[in-house]
């Protein structure tokens, strides 16, 4: 049997954990009627989502003139929200792919909900460039399809087109990765289902998975290779998103530091969102013994690291902006001009949310404090939204000529579309929590004997006594 170092804390708590207990507890929400809390949250989420859908329909019917954009400010909340959602979408694949390559066992408990979050977040992200086209029914024009103009092709030199390929690849590969992992878990639900309708539904979803040794062997190989493919994908996607800005000539956007800095920021915000969702889900579903405080702490450590990289990037941007001596650079989002200008409130919100507040995680007591982690995760989510807002709006608002300097004021449509996507996301996520296996519980079972509290400090003799192989002593 495989044992890990004794100083590592157990990842599955409790002395009474068995394989079937894990199955029972994780599938409890699927096999029982929805709770009151779920119904209340679902009602709120649906109302917000409907508001969002209404705003989007109004926007499509009337045009993007209903946004608060002006001549100076051609991009504002739409692209802010796009980058924010894509960033959130980065934690899921990082957890499932990068942590798999590094053989981090704590990933087992959180990879499924994080991947679900990734997929729903990337859906929301994809919505923004599409509606920003104004005429969404022509969205297929971004694809290189033969057409009656000659054929006139899309421009493969443009980062905006790279984005199309990056986001759609990321979404579909994440979806494949997620679903490959879901198949065996759907099979478990299928085999436990008693009523005919759920049985049929999960039988269809599980593709007839039987759990043969050869299937599992292929499963592990496919997971590993998909992780290997998804890892560079995670880094490439947000690098390409950052190139939407970095390859332009707008001061503040035209910056070589953007790709690594955006990737770190994406992971930072993604983990914050995972914390927000996990802290509620583990409590509501009573899965505290699988998603332990140790998991929360590990995620907080990732937040410290990526938050640190983001902090260094801010300092670098600020210094380089000043050091170039270029006038235009003195009003970019990281500059004395921004710190004292009309967007100073946004600048200081960013500094507080992404730089000062996360620094509290260096203290172990706060790092394992669930209430503080929850509050902080919300603060970071807000901070990362401000980061994109600052980069886009502050930089654009101070143009080359003072005569074209403008401020951006959002309209109710801006607000409705943004809040609405949060509602749509919440609806998807609540449906996921209710009808999908919320944890990869069959993978969690594989670490029970190496990282479970019950087995952790057992000697080999005790283990063999607990699991005798032969009925009587034979050679």
């Amino acid at each position, binding site marked *: 049997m495989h044992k890990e170092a004794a100083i590592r804390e157990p990842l599955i708590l409790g002395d009474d954990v068995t394989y079937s207990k894990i199955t029972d507890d994780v599938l409890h929400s699927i096999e029982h009627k929805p709770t009151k809390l779920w119904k209340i949250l679902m009602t709120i989420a649906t109302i917000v989502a409907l508001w969002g859908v209404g705003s989007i329909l109004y926007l499509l019917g009337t045009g993007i003139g209903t946004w608060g954009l002006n001549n100076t400010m051609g991009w504002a909340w739409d692209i802010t929200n796009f980058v924010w959602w894509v960033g959130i979408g980065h934690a899921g694949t990082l957890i499932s792919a990068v942590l798999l390559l590094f053989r981090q066992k704590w990933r087992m408990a959180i990879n499924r909900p994080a991947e679900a979050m990734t997929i729903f977040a990337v859906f929301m992200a994809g919505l923004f460039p599409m509606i920003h086209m104004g005429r969404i029914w022509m969205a297929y024009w971004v694809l290189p399809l033969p057409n009656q103009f000659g054929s006139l092709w899309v421009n493969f030199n443009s980062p905006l087109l790279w984005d199309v390929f990056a986001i759609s690849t990321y979404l579909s590969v994440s979806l494949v*990765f997620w679903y490959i992992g879901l198949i065996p878990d759907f099979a478990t639900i299928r085999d436990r289902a008693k009523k005919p309708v759920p049985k049929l539904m999960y039988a269809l979803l*599980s593709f*007839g998975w039987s759990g043969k040794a050869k299937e599992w062997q292929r499963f592990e190989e496919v997971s590993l290779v998909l992780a290997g493919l998804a890892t560079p994908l995670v880094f490439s996607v947000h690098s390409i998103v950052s190139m939407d800005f970095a390859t332009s000539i707008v001061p503040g956007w035209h910056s070589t530091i953007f790709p690594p800095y955006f990737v770190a920021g994406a992971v930072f915000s993604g983990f914050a969102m995972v914390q927000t969702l996990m802290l509620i889900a583990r409590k509501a579903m009573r899965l505290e013994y699988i998603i332990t405080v140790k998991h929360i702490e590990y995620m907080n450590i990732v937040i410290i690291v990526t938050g640190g990289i983001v902090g260094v990037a801010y300092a670098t941007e600020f210094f380089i902006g000043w050091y170039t001596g270029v006038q235009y650079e003195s009003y970019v989002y990281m500059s004395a001009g921004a710190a004292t200008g009309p967007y100073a409130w946004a600048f200081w919100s960013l500094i507080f949310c992404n730089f000062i507040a996360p620094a509290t995680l260096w203290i172990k007591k706060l790092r394992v404090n669930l209430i503080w982690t929850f509050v902080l995760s919300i603060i970071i989510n807000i901070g990362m939204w401000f980061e994109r807002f600052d980069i886009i709006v502050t930089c654009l608002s101070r143009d080359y000529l003072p005569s074209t300097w403008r401020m951006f004021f959002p309209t109710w449509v801006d607000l409705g579309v943004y809040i609405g996507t949060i509602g749509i996301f919440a609806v998807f996520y609540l449906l996921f929590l209710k009808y999908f296996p919320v944890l990869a519980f069959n993978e969690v079972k594989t670490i029970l004997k190496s990282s479970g509290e019950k087995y952790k400090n057992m000697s080999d003799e005790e283990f063999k006594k607990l*699991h005798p192989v032969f009925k009587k002593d034979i050679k």
Partner: protein
Amino acid sequence: MSDKTIYAIYDDDYVLLESAKHLVAKGIHIREVFSPFPIHGLDPVIGLKRTRIAITAFIYGMIGVSLALLGMWFFMIQDWPLNIGGKPNFSIFTNLPAFVPVTFEFGVLCAAHGMAITYLLRNWTLPGFKARNPYLRTTDDWFVMEIHTSDSSLDAEEIKALINETCVVEIDEK
């Protein structure tokens, strides 16, 4: 000799793995193992060869990379060369740096999807297919060996006697 199928049901992966080693050493061929999660170390014991599915991913990836480069060469160089800001598209070589992101993304797209489809086909798991696990609990907490009498020289009673030496929960014959 008629073929009989014997199922040995265990409630622990470790016990199954050790029992499998024991049974294989006694000359029994284990046709199949059903388990709720992968049992590490089992494959060589029951004689499973390493899967070659990773190689297919590489092939699909290379196809994706080639298609992306071919497509971009045709769209941007051959069919309609754009001249943006006085920087015309002369050859694929000079344009290559700008083509790297799409080439990479399309390569990953083809590798991941091609491998996933191959995986589903090789496992013969597709929507609407019937599951072939003999007991429902093998997807929860049962670990089952499937042994065919036709695979070894031993008869059903001898096999059962050998299995009975191990801590098996139940032996079933079909």
